[in-house]
């Protein structure tokens, strides 16, 4: 993944964060992401996030589960090995329904969970750059991507004027990769202020 530069601002309170996020977007700066210790109501609307496609994925996984169960059982009990069970017909639809239901739920639940992890880039053994060590504790952190057009000093001043507690420029690798947080990575040399000694 590409290595990029970010302006990182931390806030003390979500009451300062929310208006700041709105103003940053109105100003036209490229908002990379916002990190909060707990879900902040209305933040996704303020960040302008679009509706997630997770529901659609869940529906498709569910439909796949339904198809797997029905087709699988039909093939086994009708084509491959027809058995006489209690004098029922070889295609007893009602007795297939519970298993179909279970497989639909199973496929849908497992698939949606994995897709959720993938979309949010969380998974055991996955490492991401952490912008602020207290972003999961008591600070609200906003990262703005620096593009060739960005006036870094102006952005810094803008954030400080809008309630940021501290503002700094960081260089970090975008996205996520396999690795452990206990292991030191190369780019720690680029951001010596957060490197684990």
């Amino acid at each position, binding site marked *: 993944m590409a290595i990029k530069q970010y302006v990182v601002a931390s806030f003390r309170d979500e009451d300062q964060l929310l208006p700041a996020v709105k103003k940053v977007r109105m100003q036209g700066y490229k908002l990379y992401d916002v990190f909060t210790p707990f879900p902040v*109501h209305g933040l*996704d609307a303020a960040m302008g996030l679009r*509706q*997630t496609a997770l*529901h659609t994925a869940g529906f498709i996984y569910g439909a796949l589960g339904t198809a797997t169960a029905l087709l699988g059982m039909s093939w086994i009990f009708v084509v491959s090995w027809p058995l006489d069970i*209690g004098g029922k017909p070889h295609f007893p639809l*009602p007795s297939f*329904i519970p298993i179909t239901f279970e497989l639909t739920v199973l496929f849908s639940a497992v698939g949606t969970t994995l897709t959720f992890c993938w979309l949010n880039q969380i998974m055991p053994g996955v490492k991401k750059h952490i912008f602020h060590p207290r972003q999961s504790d008591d600070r609200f952190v906003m990262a703005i991507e620096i593009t060739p057009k960005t006036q870094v000093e102006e952005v810094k001043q803008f954030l400080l004027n809008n309630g940021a507690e501290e503002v700094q420029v960081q260089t970090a690798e975008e996205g996520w990769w396999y690795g452990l947080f206990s292991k030191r990575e190369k780019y720690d040399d680029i951001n010596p202020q957060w490197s684990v000694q």
Partner: protein
Amino acid sequence: MEERFVIPRRFRNTSLIFISIGVLAFLAGLFGLHGDVGVKRFWSVLVFDSLFFLYISAASLFLYCAASLAQASWHIAYKRVIEAIMVNIPVFAIIAFIVLMAVLIGHKYFIYPWTDPQVLAHDTIVAGKTPFLNVKLFVIFTVIIMLGWSLLSLKLRQISLQEDRAERGVRRFLWKTIFFSAVFIAFYAVTISVSSWHWLMSIAARWYSTMYGWYVFAGSFISLMAIISLFVIAIKNSGQLSLVNKEHLHDLGKFIFAFSIFWTYIWFAQYFLLWYGNIPLESQYFRPQLWGHYRFWFLLDLVINFAVPFLLLMTRDAKRNYTTVTIIALIVFFGHWLDFYLMVMPTVLPTQGVVGWYEIGITLGFVGLMIGLVSRALSRAPLYPVNHPYLKEAIIHKSDWG
């Protein structure tokens, strides 16, 4: 804030037209339906329609009490609509009581075969159920159940109206509502099962199902949700109840969606065990439906009560769309009317039942009565519960933060 409900002309006209259709259908049925089939049709339609609307009103009281017990705020903005449906319990209870008593006094053995001395003399299975299925117990239970539901609905409505007239910020009424809600929930939990066994399940006197109480409850609750949605949307269309918005509609859509799945689960659990066991005594109940005269209605019942709401109300946007929710609510309401039809008709008339002018006419009469009574009850009180402590919370309610 102190907003009064003005009954729109459309409500009044629809109600009057539907009631007159119902009365005409009743009179035409009384004098026009002759012979064995005609008489059976006349009585069984009256029985299941009056019980259907009584159960819907009772489900409204259940919703009111369950939400009050949970100290919920999501329903407060249209609490008066729920109240207006639940205060109709006495009216529908009187109608159902008259119909049931007429069935008993008129010796309509085809509705309740366990009242027939000849059946009791020859059928040991039905005769074995006499400790529960006898006229004395039936009348006592019917009176207790109908009186209990009616009195508690009037009591809860009275508390709610007292709150409107009292000073703002008095919490006494909240606790009073919670107390009587708890009383009703306990009473309803028992009576919904017992009443459904007596009033509906005993029509197929030899047959029984342990899921029946739940089945009737699920059907009536989802019909109620459809009716609340329709009333809320219709009142909004008439320019009133403007504080109710898409967030509240989303909740109603979720309820229709969730309870259609719940109903299907109950329906299937009942059907599946009888199908698997395949004991003639149990499976005979489904024979006219699955392989006989009612096959079309039986399959349609499943499609419009499960597949339609499940697939069409699945997305968030569909639940927040007034047109979609209106159409689905109408379909689901018809579907559960059909479900009640299938509880009674295939047993009484295994090969001759129809959905004709008489069935539709009587139902329209009840629908008209419902519209008229709900409009009247709504116009008797402020449209919003002005002194309810959760009113503000209900108005700014968001069903999700997406």
